[in-house]
């Protein structure tokens, strides 16, 4: 039996010095390789949930299993290493480090995940392969990340998230600043690259028009008892 990619049980979370819970999720399961669309209104707890899944926050109660590993059993440094190896993240503004080259951006992501020499040695080759799969020329590796166009930055952001072939890819509102065509292009790329590694995708967005393109649509208000109910 395949382990779930994400398995949440009786999860609650409230910020320190706050009386109210931000999250109260009885159960959430996402299977490996599944493409899931997570939607929620502003303030519904999407970012908090993502932080908990990445191990950046610790639940007030309950458990989060990621790829069969209960995050609560790991120390902070083990959590950081686990996240580096198994999770890839694409951010809303792509958030490439602008003063580094494209290669250095990818190298930085690989650096935190690598624990063996082989992984490091064939890094350039991996970067070139992933650039090719994203239809980026090899020459882009030497370019400064701050000088890329939006389309190029979008692809490099995916490349950075995928450089370690993570089992789970989290995309946090990556298309919020893109037009429709760019958004569709981005999604196509994302599915294409993740399919090669059977990567589980958790796509967070408030744009419900995209939900149809995913296998599963989870509304946070449906599973989070602490969140305000959505209309429509």
């Amino acid at each position, binding site marked *: 039996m395949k382990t779930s990619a994400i398995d949440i049980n009786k999860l609650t979370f409230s910020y320190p010095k706050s009386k109210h819970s931000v999250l109260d999720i009885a159960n959430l399961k996402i299977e490996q390789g599944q493409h899931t669309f997570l939607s929620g209104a502003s303030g519904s707890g999407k970012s908090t949930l*993502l932080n908990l899944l990445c191990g*950046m926050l610790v639940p007030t109660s309950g458990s989060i299993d990621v790829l069969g590993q209960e995050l609560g059993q790991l120390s902070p440094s083990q959590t*950081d290493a686990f*996240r580096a*190896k198994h999770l890839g993240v694409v951010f809303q503004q792509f958030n490439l480090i602008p003063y580094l080259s494209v290669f250095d951006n990818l190298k930085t992501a690989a*650096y935190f*995940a690598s624990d063996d020499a082989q992984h490091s040695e064939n890094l350039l080759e991996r970067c070139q392969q992933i650039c090719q799969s994203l239809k980026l020329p090899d020459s882009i590796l030497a370019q400064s990340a701050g000088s890329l166009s939006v389309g190029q930055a979008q692809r490099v952001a995916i490349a950075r998230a995928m450089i370690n072939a993570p089992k789970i890819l989290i995309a*946090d509102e990556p298309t919020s600043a893109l037009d429709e065509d760019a958004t569709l292009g981005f999604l196509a790329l994302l599915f294409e690259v993740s399919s090669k590694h059977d990567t589980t995708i958790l796509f967070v967005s408030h744009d419900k028009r995209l939900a149809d393109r995913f296998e599963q649509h989870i509304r946070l208000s449906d599973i989070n008892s602490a969140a305000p109910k959505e209309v429509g």
Partner: protein
Amino acid sequence: MLFNLAKQSLLSRKTSVFITVVALTISFAMLFAVEHIRTQAKQSFQRTVSGVDLIVAARSSQINVLLSSVFGVGSNANGITLDTYSKWASDKRVAWTIPMALGDSHKGFAVVGTDNRYFEHYRYANKRSLDFIEGDKLTFAYDIVIGADVAETLRYQKGDSITLSHGLGEVSFSHHHDFPFYISGVLAKTGTPVDRSLYVHLSALENIHVKPPASAFSALSRTQTPTSIESKQYSHDHVEDKHDEHEHHDDKHSHDSDEHHHAKKKQAPRSTQSMESLPQATQISSFMLGLNSRIGVLTMQRDINQDKTEALSAIIPGVALAELWNLLGSVENLLLLISSLMLISALFGLATMTLASLRERSSEFAVLRIMGAQPRFIFSLIQLEVLSIVLLSQVVAMALLNITLWLLGDWLSSELSISLTGSIFNTQMVFVVLLTLLASFTLGLLPAMQAYRKAKTSSF
């Protein structure tokens, strides 16, 4: 990875980093300069005289006796009679003495009247004796021995003849043209005021201040007719001296006149008049003495200071030097304080710049955290950036200091008798560098800890 990130991050903020580096460089340069000059000056002063038990001069303060007798700075209005000197020189406790008379100069360099005991007994640094690179000590009455800097600056060598001027200034209106001195020896460099002095026999120095009898130069070279050649040469030399003292507008002309003057100096005959033939000097400025047993130095000092025939001051050089440094100590401490405050101010500027940049870089740190960077990685990144700026500033400051010292070294040596020959890279400087790095690390904790705390709570 950390070094590359820090380097690229600093390069992306070139302007603010450059300004910070300039501010720090100035502060470090000041601090290093004060520290280096302080250490070197102290060493320079301490190595000037060695192995001398007492220095005796007419009643005056310790520091005045030390400065006038050893460093040629200032003067003592009164002298010591020869009788008094002879009395103490023949004391059974005394192993040797060096009489000294000051007051004349040659083109800004002090002339010291003494005798060959100076070259025999004078020690400097770790009891090193004086060596000659050319010639030998005083043989005849009108021989002169010159220091290394005198030879180098005025381009003199053994065999040249020179005239002395009355007074200690660089420009004098009274020249002893009737008494040319023959350079019999050139001393090797010592790094002390010896390099900047000329040494003549005590009796000769006194004698040139007395109107000479008609036969004073009857013992001049027997191969030449004394009177006619001498007067032409000396009047020509007098013209050339005046010419040398004016600014030269025409290089060709001055070059020609220097050569001519030099050639004339070479040709001037050497007086072979013996030292014994001159009347004995009647007065000296001071004398140095060494004892048979150092245990008796305090008793000897007291006895000299209580001399009823003449008011004298006997000083122990080491004690006088300590007093001098105590006096200078407050100035030295003030300079160190000012330069330290400048440095602290610049370091606070660096901390402020780094703190301000944290706000702009919050998304960068969040991304690094999500990629797997631990909070201590972020802390180390900030500290590395701070220390890189500090190290760069230190290197530039040291380079600047080296260049400045190379440019000003001669001036410091000539004006203040401070020889800055040592390298700035010594134990003391290493200690200062490490201390300032520690201060930088400590101040860097402000932004680094803030970045660390923010990194711990970084989120989407």
